[in-house]
């Protein structure tokens, strides 16, 4: 880490206070923001390694980090294949959920009657546990992959839809009056006013949906009990459990964690980039 030499800067406290009049962070604090989590990670892995060797924990109960890393490298062809399958389902489901969620939210915002007619079904979709409907979906869907996709979509759809619908409804009333005053068409009001106003809500929905899509893709695969070459990480985890190949199980789990964190990171970054100029949530305050 090249940031090691910057820690000495952090030692001077007055340096920290002077900086950041323009809303930015002091360089010393920025370095600390990287160093602290890294040190914590190293400490945790070290503790794990120490525990497994000091207490002689058998590797089929808790493998050490070295074994997990080894398994990650050796089993990479199998694991990467599975990861790719899981990623495909996750992102396909998320993509359809985004498009569908936004479109249906817009439809709801256009007419009170559509909202009245459809909103009970939206709630039903949301509250029914996906694991419970998975067997049915497996029967109706043309293939297992399609079934997994439908399951993941069902879960990811609702946060996008309900957040966007809420955002579309929360438009400033005076601004709506202003648009009416200048004779804006329904379409113009939607494009120039309602959609930008709903953007922060939509992005919050996206952040939730991103994580849920991954969870749903894994849960659906458990429920579907798919197997074989075209299987995702969920199947590899089950398989490793049956074969007591715990290092591989851990490796697969790590991949899932990494994917989840990456999705969260990307959606958060996207949200920050889109809102940083104007929205309260993205503004740093100093008191």
């Amino acid at each position, binding site marked *: 880490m090249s940031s090691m030499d910057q820690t000495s800067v952090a030692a001077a406290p007055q340096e920290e206070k002077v900086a950041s009049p323009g809303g930015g962070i002091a360089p010393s604090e920025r370095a600390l923001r990287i160093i602290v989590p890294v040190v914590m990670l190293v400490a945790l892995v070290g503790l794990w390694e120490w525990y497994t060797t000091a207490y002689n924990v058998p590797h089929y109960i808790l493998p050490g980090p070295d074994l997990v890393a080894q398994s990650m490298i050796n089993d990479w062809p199998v694991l990467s294949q599975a990861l790719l399958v899981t990623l495909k389902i996750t992102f396909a489901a998320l993509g359809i959920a985004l498009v569908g969620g936004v479109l249906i939210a817009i439809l709801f915002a256009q007419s009170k009657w559509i909202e009245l007619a459809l909103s009970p079904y939206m709630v039903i979709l949301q509250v029914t546990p996906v694991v419970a409907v998975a067997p049915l979906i497996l029967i109706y869907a043309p293939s297992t992959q399609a079934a997994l996709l439908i399951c993941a979509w069902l879960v990811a759809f609702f946060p996008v839809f309900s957040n966007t619908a809420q955002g579309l409804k929360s438009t400033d009333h005076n601004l709506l009056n*202003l648009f009416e005053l200048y004779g804006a068409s329904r379409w113009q009001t939607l494009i*120039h006013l309602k959609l930008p106003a709903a953007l922060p809500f939509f992005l919050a929905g996206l952040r939730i949906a991103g994580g849920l899509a991954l969870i749903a893709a894994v849960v659906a695969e458990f429920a579907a009990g798919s197997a074989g070459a075209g299987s995702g990480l969920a199947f590899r985890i089950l398989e490793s459990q049956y074969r007591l190949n715990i290092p591989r199980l851990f490796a697969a789990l790590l991949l899932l964690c990494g994917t989840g964190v990456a999705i969260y990171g990307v959606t958060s970054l996207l949200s920050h980039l889109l809102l940083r*100029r*104007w*929205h309260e949530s993205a503004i740093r305050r100093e008191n």
Partner: protein
Amino acid sequence: MSTTAPNLVVPHSAASAAHGRPIVRLDHISKTFSNGTIALKDMSLTIGEGEFVSLLGPSGCGKSTALRIIAGLGEATTGRVEWPTMSHDAAGKPEREIGFVFQEPTLMPWATVFKNVWLPLRLHGLSKTAARERVMAALEMVGLEKFADSYPRELSGGMKMRVSIARALVTRPRVLLMDEPFAALDEITRQKLNDDLLRLWEQFGWTIVFVTHSVFESVYLSSRIVIMAARPGRVIDELSVDAPHPRGISFRTSTAYSDYCRQASESLLSAIGANDHL
């Protein structure tokens, strides 16, 4: 109904002489809300071209409702609004050349100052390049041409209000409707904006209808004050302010000014019944 003009003899200004031709006429307007509240009862008012008319009254007197009906935001329950001199569109609706300024700045937070002011023109299909000159001219009028690329949150309350005014002016309206535009500002900023508004009005000679609950503000700005009372909302008095323009600190500290203020205050007080708990 209307009080006789105060016997202080003041020279007739160019601005107040200009109005004669009625630009908008309210004909026995009443407005009852769906919950049964009578917001406005039988209001008749003729506003002449180039007038600066203030609607003055306590909250609940229907002054904002009247303004919104003039703007076409919400229909009157009974009565009519006429625009004698304005052309009518294909649907037979008058093409109201109006600008509206709300009590809050009502800016789009996601858009720059330029884009906010561009909005009325954009909704009429003007591209950014076609609108640029007019947008910048409107921003110059309110002294914000340097802030075209700023976002609303980067501006102070007074500056946001100026952007709002620039947006109302960008369509070059004949009538400017203002709904307590400076009520939320501090006294110093408010006085500055009052002065600036007066300068613009003296220069361009639009018709302004200005809703306020401040006696002092209404006397300072207006050529005519329509005094209203609440429960039910109605017009109780009218007062024409025949002080010359340009008005400034010397008018604001004159005895004529305080006489007008006293008259307006007395009218307001006379309408408050013994049973009104304020």
